[in-house]
């Protein structure tokens, strides 16, 4: 039994990540919990090193903020995996690793002799997780896809957008399609690791992004699965079988508050009424003894809809001259579950995220700077999340990994480098 001091939960884990940006989030989830993740890049560098935005808008292989974010704590080893010698190096590395994360198109690594069946010969307990748009040997695998087309085809986009259906459905930003596939990859890898610690047995994991998105649409799927109904998109709130009143209030400065369902219980209802009365905007709402009934709203009941519409009008006039952030805090302090609509930059400046230490500082010594990064999604008492090193420079760890882990001599290293293998 070991007692890792301040080391992440996964500090005994060695991972090779190969492929594209679609699997990078899973590699980061592993690396930020302590795993030693070796990212194998081509000699020209991973393609996402060319993704905007760039540090000071200055494009170079070391300046992509996309690369910076998705590759914290990883090591960069450049290997030409299309060469025979390069494949031998990967096989040797894989024989000392626990997990291979593969986000190339399905079958590519098999063709190079680096697929699960081949790597298993030298490392029986290895876990190989492949993340792809459609899974392995599955219909549609030949389609060209991106995050946008995946979210459109997989279902989420249908539920997102505006009340006005002449406006296109909307893809939620931030490459959430890739990240959703990576969440399932991470769950499956962890389950496989737990199983392996009991049984000693490794395995192959096939993650299908299209399927992951299909089961990440909430009512978009289950309303259809249960009774054949399809939800329709609405501005800033849940898509529904029937239209429901809006939930977003714009305050001064164009900042929005989402009041969700403004009062969910009788207690919240009377709290809200008292507040609206204090503000002089109660109108005839005091005649209602309970909040608009959710079930009645779902079946399109006219009276419930009318009541909710009046509530939203009263809240809007109350919000017209109030600071939205203060209004959000006051509503929550009164027990109403409203939310301020934060832009990413608002999150960076938000008192709660800062008090929790969510915003972390990461050093970039070669440009003599530190920058604030988004931090831990979960707080562990033992084996914490951390960013120990910024994303690697191209090939930064090639020499140390090959010489220390594979025991290559300086001469062998120089020869491979001269031959363009590394």
């Amino acid at each position, binding site marked *: 039994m070991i007692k890792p001091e301040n080391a992440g939960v996964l500090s005994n884990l060695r991972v090779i990540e190969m492929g594209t940006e679609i699997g990078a989030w899973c590699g980061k989830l592993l690396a930020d919990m302590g795993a030693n993740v070796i990212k194998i890049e081509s000699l020209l560098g991973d393609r996402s090193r060319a993704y905007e935005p760039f540090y000071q808008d200055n494009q170079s292989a070391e300046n992509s903020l996309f690369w910076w974010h998705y590759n914290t704590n990883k090591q960069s080893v450049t290997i030409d995996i299309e060469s025979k010698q390069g494949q031998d190096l990967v096989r040797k590395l894989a024989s000392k690793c626990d997990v291979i994360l593969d986000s190339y198109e399905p079958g590519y690594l098999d063709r190079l002799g680096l697929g699960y*069946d081949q790597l298993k010969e030298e490392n029986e307990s290895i876990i190989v997780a492949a993340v792809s748009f459609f899974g392995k040997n599955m219909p549609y695998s030949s389609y060209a896809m991106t995050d946008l087309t995946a979210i459109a085809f997989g279902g989420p986009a249908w539920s997102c957008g*505006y009340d006005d259906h002449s406006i296109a459905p909307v893809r939620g*930003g931030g490459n959430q399609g890739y990240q959703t596939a990576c969440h399932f990859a991470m769950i499956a890898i962890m389950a496989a690791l737990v199983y392996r610690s009991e049984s000693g047995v490794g395995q192959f994991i096939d993650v299908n992004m299209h399927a992951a998105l299909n089961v990440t649409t909430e009512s978009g799927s289950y309303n259809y699965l249960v009774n054949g109904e399809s939800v329709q998109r609405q501005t800033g709130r849940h898509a529904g079988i029937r239209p429901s009143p809006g939930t977003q209030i714009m305050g001064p400065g164009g900042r929005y508050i989402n009041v969700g369902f403004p009062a969910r219980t009788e207690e919240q209802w009377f709290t809200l009424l008292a507040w609206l009365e204090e503000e002089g905007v109660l109108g005839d709402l005091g005649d209602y003894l309970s909040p608009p009934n959710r079930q009645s709203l779902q079946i399109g009941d006219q009276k419930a809809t009318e009541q909710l519409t009046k509530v939203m009008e009263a809240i809007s006039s109350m919000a017209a001259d109030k600071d939205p952030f203060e209004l959000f805090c006051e509503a929550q302090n009164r027990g109403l579950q409203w939310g301020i609509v934060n832009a990413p930059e608002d999150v960076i400046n938000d008192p709660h995220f800062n008090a929790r230490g969510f915003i972390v500082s990461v050093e970039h010594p070669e440009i003599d700077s530190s920058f604030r990064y988004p931090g831990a999604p979960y707080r562990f008492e033992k084996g914490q999340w951390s960013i120990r090193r910024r994303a690697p420079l191209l090939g930064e760890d090639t020499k140390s990994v090959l010489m220390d882990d594979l025991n290559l001599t300086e001469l062998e290293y120089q020869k491979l480098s001269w031959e363009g293998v590394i």
Partner: protein
Amino acid sequence: MTIPEGSQQKALSHIRICDFTGQLAGAGATRTLAAFGAEVIRIEDRLTEGSWDILRGNGPFVDERRGNELGGAFNNHNVGKLGISLNMRLPNAKEILTKLIKISDVVTENFSAGVLDRWGFSYEEMKKIKPDIIYISNSGFGHYGPYSSFKTWGPIVQAVSGITFQSGLPDMPPAGWGFSYMDHTGGYFMAIAILLAIYHKKRTGEGQYVDMSCTDAGASLNGPAMLDYTVNGRPLKRDGSPNSNRSQHPLMIPHGIYNCEGVDNWIAIAVRTDQEWRNLCSLMKQDEWLSSQELETKEGRLKNADQIDKVIGSWALGFNARELMDLLQAAGIPAAKVQKPPERVDQDENTAAWGLFPVVEHLEMGRVRVDGVPVKMSQTPPVIEKGAPLLGQHNKYVLEELLGYTNQEVQNFYSEGVI
């Protein structure tokens, strides 16, 4: 390799979870672990008939019947779990829970802060019952920080964490997410956290407390936009932004969702490279674009993005969305129809071949299709077979088989209203 069907092993069959979670943000986590084989014992309140989880009695419904055992979403989010009912106000219930914690690996909940404490089952107390217990709490804002007492559900988490803002079109209100993306995703993070803590315990023998905040999880999903602000000082709130149907990381032009023939039919098109741009121009017979030097580069196309979108928009209108998708794919251009629920569930070859939407048997609802698992594993395939439990459906099994109570004792618990 291709994964064979029919293996009987489950990855987590040696793991038992004492589960107080509900809704989707919590129940979604233990649903996934149950599919991987964990024995998940969901505990619900006997007195209020489990109505803390509002999904229990909420639609969609399979037929005209209504009630606490008929909620379609509840069934979807609780497949494969066992269910027991306890009235935690009574001392005997506390004794039962103590015995259950003693034989569990993990205790999970997504209550408001302090509920377990009030019952006398704070983490400190649980450690006295089982020193290496793992305790995972999932809440909207975590258990410390200025908003820790604030209440949330999916859309509120999405609003505060930045997820809502980054989904929308210029000069429009936030479109946000038309479903609780962060309830799904909060559940995924919670499942990951549970497994990480189990892994840590196998390495070190130590249990621990994990504080999971859905807004932290949500805020972690916006990295490049946050770094553009912290590194370059460029906020996402600026002229022409956000526009989440365009692509900022990396820049791609054209990149959007365009109207096609018929009612509410749309196609998503993304052009990643100059070669794909030329292929698109050829397909559209846009000779003028093909010969334009300015449009040869991404930078040039970016300057003309609105005009390009307009022309593609009127071109796409003349096509059936699915047929246009096939045309574009044949030219190597990423494109996909915005699929409607019936299209992606019943007419999609990939979901059919994967077997993505399994049928489960629910004691009251009958046979119902539910969300499946988007992962296949060669040695321990995840499986969803059983519907959600009725309130207290497994009281007898859990109390007699697992906790060693006699049949008579269990009968007494029933008559005293303990279970």
